[in-house]
């Protein structure tokens, strides 16, 4: 272990970590929108929609992310859609995250006592108001711990987009390791940066959980 090698690699890796972080955040935001849609499909009384939701979840959770990424890269140009690699990578991460988040939301919805919906109906709430004022706020609160977990998983999974050519933390460390002949130092540093980001995220998640729990009483 040579500390000077770490010192030399650190600015590059930190710079790349910022890319990893924003890609993950953008993907998780889109993933939440998709997740809510998938969840709505799955709980919908329309059988075709429910089927589609189930198939979506099964596909994106059943196929390895690396295969999904390569599929996007090969399929999009074939059907004539030309998007930059970064957009395709973020899109794929979002789609995959939508499947996991959708299931988290579905679980949270199931955890809300039926009595709440019945009470709202008795009070004359319409279906939209029930969703917006009764179900979604509670489902979001119940989902927070799982969603933080999901964000951490996504941040780690985003390392795979290095393989399809996006220059983020994993790719930068791979390049640096090859250039400096110091793979051990470089990867240990990269691993510690990932770890630090995840520890901060889980700390923020715990804080958010406490606040939401307090707001609930």
């Amino acid at each position, binding site marked *: 272990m040579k500390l000077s090698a770490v010192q030399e690699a650190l600015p590059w890796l930190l710079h790349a970590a910022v890319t990893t972080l924003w890609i993950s955040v953008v993907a998780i935001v889109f993933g939440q929108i998709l997740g809510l849609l998938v969840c709505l499909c799955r709980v919908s009384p329309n059988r075709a929609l429910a089927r589609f939701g189930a198939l979506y979840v099964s596909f994106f959770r059943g196929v*390895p992310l690396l*295969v999904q990424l390569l599929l996007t890269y090969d399929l999009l140009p074939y059907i004539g859609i030309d998007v930059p690699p970064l957009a395709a990578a973020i899109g794929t991460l979002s789609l995959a995250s939508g499947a996991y988040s959708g299931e988290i939301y579905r679980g949270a919805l199931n955890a809300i006592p039926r009595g709440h919906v019945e009470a709202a109906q008795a009070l004359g709430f319409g279906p939209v108001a029930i969703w917006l004022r009764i179900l979604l706020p509670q489902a979001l609160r119940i989902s927070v711990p799982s969603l933080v977990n999901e964000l951490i998983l996504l941040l780690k999974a985003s390392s795979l987009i290095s393989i399809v050519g996006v220059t983020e933390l*994993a790719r930068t460390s791979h390049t640096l390791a090859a250039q400096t002949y110091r*793979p051990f130092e470089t990867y240990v540093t990269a691993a510690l940066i990932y770890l630090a980001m995840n*520890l901060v995220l889980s700390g923020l998640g715990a804080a958010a959980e406490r606040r939401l729990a307090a707001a609930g009483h």
Partner: protein
Amino acid sequence: MDFSVYLHYWPKLLSGFGNTLFCWATGALLGIALGFALALLRRTGFAPLLWLLRGVIEVVRGTPFLIQLYLLYDGGPAIGLKLGAMQAGILALGIYGSAYFTEIFRAGFAAVPRGQVEAAESLGFSRLDILRRVRLPAMLIAIVPALTNMIIILSKETVVLSVIAVPELMYQMQSMAAETFAALETIIAMAVLYWLMVEAAARLGRAAELRVTAYLRVA
């Protein structure tokens, strides 16, 4: 699209699939064995050891598998650890899995009803017998869903081994794609194949779950 490339390449793909299954099985077994050993070590309650183990588990769970694999394979020789690609891949799968398996076992130990252990103690069971005949069977019931879930996650991680050129299915498929330019055909087949494999594994997992909880339905 032209799927006839498979006529020519199937022996390679078959050996790739065999390697995928081999890496998955040995990686998962190694992970389960290591995870169980770690869970037993944590039960000793020796504080410095607990902190150390918790730190190690936190590091393994907080870093991407890809980086761990690079570190082991590319960085290993720097600390005198020279491994072949497949050895490094299996060891990486095992280490990565063990951090998750050990948490599952810990939850499993906590789920064993105290009364059963006390009953075994009062009947004069040795500590090993209590572990083997009371704790393990009782915890297995609680942890089968989590175990199969983690084993399935590992099956998807085997794909990542292709980046250090382990000749598993993904690697063989990619070299076929590079030689034939049939990239799309290749990756579609991969997606379908892994999807089927994961669904099959999930079914097996549910069957195992039904089997260990069969006693609940006897009455």
